[in-house]
Each structure stands twice: as C-alpha cells, then as structure tokens.
C-alpha cells in the first residue's frame, strides 16, 4: 500500500478552495468575524453535498444533521491547518467522513442498550417520484428504491465509503485516496468490488 500523498496530480483548485484559503488568512489575521461571514458562504456551497454524503452513511436524518454540523464546526475551528495547495473538498470530506464514522460508532453503542422501535428510521425511503406516476408505478419505484438502499447498505464499510465518495460525492479516485489515506490502487479495488456486488444484487432483481 503506497502513501496517499504520492497520488496523481489533482485538478486545479476550486472556488471553494480559494474561499477556504481566504478564510484561513482572515482567521490568521485576527479578523474572525469577517472570516465567519465568509465561512457562511462556504457552508452554503458545500452543505447540500455534505448532507447527501452523511445521509448515505448514516441513514438517519438527525445523525446526518449532527455529523454535518460537527464537520463544519470542526473545519472552521481548525481552518488554520488547512493546506491551500490541496482541494478544500477533499479535506472537508475527510473530516465529514470521520464525523460520520464517529457517529456510527456511538450509535451502535447506543443501540446496544436501546429498545428497537422501527427499522426504517424517521424518514421514509425516498423514491424518484414524478407527478405523472400512477399509484402502481409509485409502489414499484418505492420497492426499487428500497432494494437499492439495502444493496448499498449491504456493502462492507470500506467499499461503501469509497463508492459513496467516488460516485455520490463525485470525487476522483485520487481525491478519495487522499481523503482516506489509502493508495489509489486500493481505492480502485474497493470501488470495483462495490460496483460488482451492487450489480450482482440489483441486476438479479
């Protein structure tokens, strides 16, 4: 397993990376209030993507909410350790994934002592609904959405992480290797295995 730092060169820095570098400069210069205002913009840009990743991991709206908040707060409080030559998205995603993993751990500890109430959580599984769908079509869509959700959840943790980051968070394998501290070859292997398993589970049906 090679070091992730020796990965392929990354794409030019995004607008959010530049914004993060600016915020870092403001915090370092003691202009914390201005930095916080600018950080609001960064939160707004990254928020939707962040909740999608967190929800995919945790499958619970409250936990995902908490993980995203924790990650954004942690990012701001540690903004001075952000490296401006790296994409902000990669750094942020790594912090977010760690927040999700921490929450999953604490949730499993919590569930050991809790009385099970419902297996589906507080939000019904979403379905790709259109207004033109008939009730039968909606039912089929819902069942299919459940199948897909269960298939993704059945992936081993590492495969699911890599798949989520590559496919849902739209990061390259090089970026994921940086975020997870794995070699790019390892990331590719996990991605292959994840997609193979998903195809086996979902095409069979």
């Amino acid at each position, binding site marked *: 397993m090679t070091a992730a730092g020796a990965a392929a060169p990354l794409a030019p820095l995004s607008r959010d990376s530049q914004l993060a570098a600016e915020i870092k400069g403001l915090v370092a210069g003691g202009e914390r209030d201005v930095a916080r205002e600018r950080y*609001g913009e960064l939160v707004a840009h990254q928020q939707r993507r962040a909740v999608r990743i967190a929800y995919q991991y945790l499958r619970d709206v409250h936990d995902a909410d908490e993980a995203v908040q924790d990650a954004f707060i942690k990012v701001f409080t540690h903004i001075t350790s952000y490296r401006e030559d790296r994409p902000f998205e990669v750094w942020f995603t790594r912090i977010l994934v760690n927040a999700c993993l921490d929450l999953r751990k604490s949730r499993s500890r919590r569930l050991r002592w809790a009385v099970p109430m419902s297996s589906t959580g507080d939000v019904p599984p*979403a379905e790709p609904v259109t207004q033109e769908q008939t009730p039968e079509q909606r039912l089929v869509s819902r069942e299919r959405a459940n199948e897909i959700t269960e298939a993704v959840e059945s992936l081993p943790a590492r495969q699911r992480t890599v798949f989520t980051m590559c*496919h849902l968070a739209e990061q390259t394998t090089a970026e994921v290797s940086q975020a997870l501290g794995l070699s790019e070859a390892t990331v590719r292997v996990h991605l292959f295995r994840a997609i193979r398993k998903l195809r086996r589970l979902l095409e069979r049906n």
Partner: protein
Amino acid sequence: MKASHLSDDRLIELCVIDEASATEQQHLSACARCDARRGRLRRLLDEVSDTATAAADAAFTPERLVRQQARILAHLQHEGRPARVIAFPAGHGAHEPMVSRTRPGSRWIAAAAVAGLLVGGIAGRFGHDYSFGRPGLSRVIVARTAEQPELRASDGSTATIREVTASISDDEFLNQLEIAIDGPSAAALQPINELTPRSWEVR
C-alpha cells in the same frame, strides 16, 4: 471476436474512472453487445445515485438546510469566547457553612428579624397576661354576627365579611403551628428556609 469483448472490470472502469481509449471506443461502436452492457451498467449506477440523492434531498429540505446553517454559524459565534458562569445560590454547598456566604447587610436584617420576634413574643406574653389575667387563654376573638359589613360589587352582587371567632389555649395554638409546619403546603417554603441563615449562624 469474443476475445476482444470488454471485460466486466474494464466496463466498470470506463463507467466510473477512465475514458475509453480509441481502440475501445472503436470496439464499443462496432459491438452492440458490449455497448449494451456498458449502457446497462451506467443506468444502474445512475439509478443508485439518483435514489441516494432523492432520499437525502427528501430528508433535508431547503428550510432544514437554512436552519442547519444558522445553527452552525450561531455555534461558531460563541466559539473561543469564555463561557458565562452563572452563580449558584449561596448556601446550597453542604461542605461550606452558610454563614460564610452571607453578607454583613443580610446578617443585620436577620438579626433584627430575630430580635423583633423575641421582643414581640415577650411583649405578647405580658400583654396577654395583663389584659385578661387568665392564664391559658392567649386571645379571645369575639364573634360579630349582628353587624357584618357588606361589600357591594359593581354588578350589584354582595358579600359579607365575617370574622371567625375562636378561643384557643397556648398549647393548642402551638400544636396548630406544628401541624401547619409539617403539612404539605410548608414544603414549598423549604428551599427558602434553607437559603435563610439561622439565628445561631448570625454573629
């Protein structure tokens, strides 16, 4: 011809990682089977992605995102500032004597209250003895049934004030006091009692 078909792994790479090379592109254009396999895999991955996105977007409405953002920024506003310490009411620390927490002003007020009670008690005792000259009776309240004052409300309704009469001994009076102190209504006054310095604590 079969040997030149694209492998499953290569199809996955083409769908999520790499661009097809010129040779592969040529093959995909010519081979309907490989092209169909690639299309099927792409649709499957898009379906997974769309389902996950739809689920997250349904759970996190725009209003929820706005609230979340506000909470994050509100939290950051307090970040790095020292926490405000709210003083706990003095006298609840069992390890410290209450007298050490009372201020001199409070001590004087408490001392005056105790002195007032003592003087009042003694004066009442002597006053009762001189007025009535009958030991055992602390007070006689005379019933006034003949002239009961009447209150008239704005709507014309009336109510009478009636002074209740009783004649009780000192022992009975103290008994009633003890019963009242032990009663449930006195429990509400217990925290105030605990916060108030005792007479022997005031120097």
